[in-house]
């Protein structure tokens, strides 16, 4: 059984892995930072955030000396699962650490309940 954790990430309760919700690619151990199994790309934020007056220091777009756009992709399908806006060199954020033990227990109960009641619950 897979539990959906974010828009693009599932946790497979059997294999205890982060998986891509779009293509099923097995990304990384669910007890670890999923970003370790992703592809990371750094870019100048102005490639996405267009400037209004490019010659001005203040031009509506982030300043590439202060800020780099970090895109985090699923290696299987290239879906952008997360982005970060970081000063150059700042460590990536471990943004989600799921308590796997609690999650497993919760869905064990859920599965039992489904079998017992013979009625489908909403997949969450």
């Amino acid at each position: 059984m897979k539990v959906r954790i974010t828009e693009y990430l599932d946790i497979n309760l059997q294999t205890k892995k982060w998986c891509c919700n779009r293509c099923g690619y097995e990304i990384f151990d669910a007890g670890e930072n999923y970003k370790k199994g992703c592809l990371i790309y750094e870019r100048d934020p102005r490639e996405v955030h267009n400037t209004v007056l490019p010659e001005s220091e203040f031009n509506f777009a982030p300043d590439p000396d202060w800020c780099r756009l970090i895109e985090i992709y699923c290696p299987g399908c290239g879906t952008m699962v997360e982005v970060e806006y970081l000063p150059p060199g700042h460590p990536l954020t471990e943004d989600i650490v799921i308590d796997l033990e609690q999650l497993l227990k919760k869905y064990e109960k859920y599965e039992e309940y489904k079998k017992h009641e013979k009625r489908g619950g909403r997949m969450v």
Partner: protein
Amino acid sequence: MPKINVTSEYRKGQINLGEVWKAGYPSEKETAYTPFIDNGDFEIYSRKLELICFEARQILSKMGTTQMLQSGDVIVGIYTAAGDLSCAVVGTHLHVVCAQIIIKYIISKYQDEPSVGIKDGDLFFVNEALLGGVHNPDILMIMPIFHDGELIAWTAVAVHEGDTGSIDPGGMTPRARTRYDEGLHISPIKVGENFRLKKDIVDFLENSVRNPRQMTIDLKARATSCMRVRKRILEEVVETKGNHFFIGLLRKNIDVAAEAARNKIASLNDGTYRTVIFLDIGIPKSLLKITVTVYKKGDEITFDFNGTSPENREGPWNTFAHGIIAGSAVYLFQYFLFNLPNCSGSMVPFKYVIPEGTLINASEDAAVSVGIITVGHVVFYGIHHAMSKMLFSSPYRELACAGWVIPAPPWLYGGLDQWGFPTAGLCADQLNATGLGGRPDMDGPDAAGFNFCPSGIFPDAEFQELQLPFLYLFRNRYMSDNHGFGKYRGGSGVMFAVSPHNVDSLFFASAQGGQKIPCNSGLFGGYATITPPGIQITASNLRTLLANSDEGIPYDVHELLGEKRIEGHYTLESLMRLFRQINSGDLFLMPSPGGASYGDVLERDPELVMADLRKNITTPWVAQNVYKVVYDPVTLRVDREATDRARRAERENRRKRGKPYHEFVKEWSQRKPPEEILTLYGSWPNP
């Protein structure tokens, strides 16, 4: 308690703010009476209390004159005899936390103090941020409610006032370095006794600020609201159902909310959720870092802010710890606790770790007047995104939204108005037209409001021009591309330009960071919103163009900057702008930015991109380069197959250009920002 002043009490820990912002234990009476409130009566009368507050809020908004009051950034609350909030109608949920700290202070300090005491008909005035307000422009009026000589409850109203007698107009000057630059700091005093305002105290307050007429009118509005709440409670609840019923009802509101909040939390996945945010601020600018870590276990949530930059004395962007708790309430009651009452019970399961010596737990003499709207906004956003990452995998998935825009910039004005009277204040315009964040199921609403006050009103342009010496050159068009791009984009905001009108000049300032690095990345692969600068045009020929009804007068910022049809001296700068004189005919621009976005841009329905092109919310550059939509530029008809191909190719490109994590980190970790932008940051990378 020895008679010492508020700052030294705070410094010595004699004002214990650690727990007083949340509901205390029930009193003996409350414990005795609560079980006898039957569910039917509970439904009817808890709603009745809300309606009483609602009416008082309407009275306040209609009588008062300050910008934030008219737009609805207020609270009217009913508190237990011990000072716990039981029921409130709010514009901004900040005050759900605030007033009860002050009431508890009044009780502990003055109830048994023979020279003060607490009596029927008293009206307390307070604006001391150390005692629970978020900054000193927030002025509260607090009234005890007695029945048969017994103190049974309190009512309080809070409103942001236009001036505090600070070193610059508006009470929120970017020039402030300590609390002594920020004007009045009034610990609770009786501005009224025997149900009447006291002339000597009102005169003192009038005499202390730049806009005395507004101070008095708004004092009267607050007093009227308090007295209306008191009168209706006594006549419609206490005298019909009994004193014991009312006391039990107030407590039951709190207990039921606390239980409901615990149940909601228990349904979420246990885990740790984190947001790291950077704010560029100051003159000169420096990076600041704010870390929000949310620990969820069982039926409790802890917000931990370790990893936040140290307090600094370069400006007024620090906050007190209770300001941060108040900021969390703004998120919680808008999203996760949206269906629970605005009361202290709802916040019982939340804990806070706010390290001392950081920006967000500043020392007692720090300047904080701009803190809640700069650093506080960022904290609010950090909580929002960390909570959204928790809520997606829960029964509350629809609440897993991207954040409001950060930053919404405060815009301050001062001078003489068109009738020659002194005027000063914080404008409500630009705050109340920002965009909401993208959602799991739809775009964020455009020009949705103000993140601290979602029910607030974007004031009517004609009404603003009537009461203030302003002429809006433009204000009513969305600014294209000023939101985050994503599967569901952030709501669009606007940008507007104002010129002093029917006066020779006015003084304007704004106080915000976020021009170098966005404070709000999007959610789940969505992009951040815009980083708008401050703009002004001086020595302009606008008056001539207007006199000639010139066809070329620009109607939005792209026309203004792109075509430069107005002649003059253009300045693009940080939004941290000190007060400057702007003459009639010159222009001062303020952004009201859009929200952050949700999800991967390549998943956005191409038809939604075309709809945005038609409304000028998105530019063709973004449609083609960011969303990768192929379309006919004349008919805006989408070429589905070519779009699919372009998007497939972009996904392939990502897979090619992306590096494995460890390879990326190896190179990335060797880099560091220039030292000159880390002056206020603390130790790199973890302050």
